[in-house]
């Protein structure tokens, strides 16, 4: 908590990121007080420009853009969060296990990982989505994204572990009789956690991007509001051509803010958690 407070006080990027994330979560929590159901249509006059009654306007399907956006961001964040949680936690286990075990175990695991890595992810996602024809609900999508996000990251985590276990201080620790678990926990984790944090945020952003991509292509469950499906329906009813830009502006600007905010938080956190860069900054400011 103290770390977060310090960062908030002294780190401009973190402060900006934190404020935006707070706003985003505020928006998300508003969805629980929405006067309309998430999937309800034709509840308000169609195609209204932003006004006092509908601050972000209404869609061609008769939905209020503001309240729709609260649901959309909630769903998108949940999908991305779940995808990261599933994907990266398996990736960490797989990568570090492979890295620490080495030898035959490593070879077998890596050949499996390699064979998944060569499959391009976007075409595969499109293929699967086409096959299930919109039958993929949000949880299914999250699972699928999580699964596809195991292999590349696990490779990165493995490389970190491989490098850490060859460092001089690891040898010294091993020699001093420290047991393996302690070495991993005390000597290696301080290195690994900042990397993991920054990397998990990038995974989060990738998952949001993928969800939007698939939805815009009309490949996932289009009845549920997400950032992607909002853009899809906006395009479907020619929002751009008929100059109803507010329909598209809300999800696009919203997603840009989310991406920037999480990016700012991840870089400032990882910078803070690495004592070398932190002290360099301290030295520069004195």
């Amino acid at each position, binding site marked *: 908590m103290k770390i977060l407070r310090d960062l908030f006080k002294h780190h401009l990027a973190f402060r900006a990121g934190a404020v935006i994330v707070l706003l985003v979560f505020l928006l998300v929590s508003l969805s629980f007080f929405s006067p309309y159901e998430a999937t309800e249509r034709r509840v308000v006059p169609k195609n209204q420009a932003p006004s006092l009654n509908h601050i972000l306007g209404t869609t061609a399907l008769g939905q209020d853009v503001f309240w729709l956006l609260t649901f959309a961001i909630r769903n998108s964040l949940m999908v991305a969060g779940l995808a990261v949680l599933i994907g990266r936690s398996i990736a960490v286990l797989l990568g570090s296990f492979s890295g620490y075990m080495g030898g035959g175990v490593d070879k077998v695991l890596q050949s499996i990982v390699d064979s998944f890595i060569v499959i391009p992810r976007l075409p595969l996602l499109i293929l699967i989505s086409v096959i299930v024809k919109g039958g993929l609900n949000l949880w299914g999508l999250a699972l699928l994204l999580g699964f596809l996000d195991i292999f590349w990251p696990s490779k990165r985590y493995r490389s970190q572990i491989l490098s850490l276990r060859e*460092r*001089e*201080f690891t*040898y*010294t*620790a091993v*020699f*001093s*009789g*420290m*047991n393996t678990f*302690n070495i991993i926990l*005390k*000597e290696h984790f*301080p*290195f690994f956690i900042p990397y993991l944090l920054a990397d998990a945020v990038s995974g989060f952003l990738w998952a949001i991007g993928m969800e939007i991509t698939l939805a815009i292509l009309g490949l996932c469950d289009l009845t549920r509001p997400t950032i992607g499906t909002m853009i899809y329906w906006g395009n479907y009813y020619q929002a751009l051509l008929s100059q109803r830009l507010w329909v598209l502006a809300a999800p696009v600007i919203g997603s840009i803010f989310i991406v920037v905010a999480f990016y700012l938080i991840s870089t400032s956190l990882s910078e803070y958690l*690495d*004592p*070398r860069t932190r*002290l360099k900054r301290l030295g520069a400011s004195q």
Partner: protein
Amino acid sequence: MSFLAEAKDLRAYYITRSYGVERTVKAIDDISIQIKEGEILSIAGESGCGKSTLLKVLLGAIDPPLRIVGGTMQYRFGEDYYDVLSMSVDDLKKKRWSQISYIPQGSMHVLNPVRKIGNTFHDFIVTHRDLDKQETGKMARNYLGRLGLSAEVMNVYPHQLSGGMRQRVTIALATVLSPKLVLADEPTTALDVLVQRGVVQLLKEVQQREGSTLVLVSHDMGVHANLADRIAILYAGKLVEIAKTERIFNSPTHPYTQYLIESLPRLDDKSDRTSIPGRPPTLENPPKGCRFHPRCPHALEVCGQKVPPLTDLGNGHQTACFLVSEVDNSEPG
């Protein structure tokens, strides 16, 4: 005789096998050496003559491709003898750091860069002592104080220290549990001369205060002259001469040692120093007989055929050279 560690007829080879080709590097070939309690033993020699390998074996850190092909290696703590080569890994781990410690070569990366020195001390101490964080902190602070180091280093990260300071902290870390045997692998390499002096003094101080035994590997003869009680000269995986420091410097008997000593600059002598002709042989395929004979100006015929035995010249001075043993033999009794 009270020895702390003893190697007998030790042979340690690096054996690698790949694509059906086997390479054997005879890094240590038939070395017997005794480390006495409380002494400072220096191991000297050119690069690639087996110094570091000998240290590894003395530490019991024998990992492939290094393999012990023959001989024995023993520790003695109190009345107990431990055979290093047949000791279990767990036993060895318990002995390490608490009884046998190691000051690694170049302390640049020895300390974990993202952990404060105090935490590193804590980690190393709790591995062997059942203490909590405050107690280890106190113990480390006291010890640093006794070595004349500021206790403030406990709260900083390694990269905030200078190279010399880091090396001193590493020495403190290696000796905080008062080990009986301390092995140092080139502890002064990559430090400037002034800092070297400080580090050498610290090593000596630690050794004297704790009454521990120090084994030092270095190719800096100055460090040896300053620190060592006895010096062992290695050449191409063999022990060629071992004697008290003064004897090595004043009356070296092996031609290789003579070269080493002659190559040192002297205050009163401004003439050019000559280096030893030729290069050390590869340990993969060392020359027959005495390994130094291709470079030796006094080589006899027998030197190319037979391996000279280590001959005792009295007073703990031993040399493996036919020049010495032949002369001794030819003297009418």
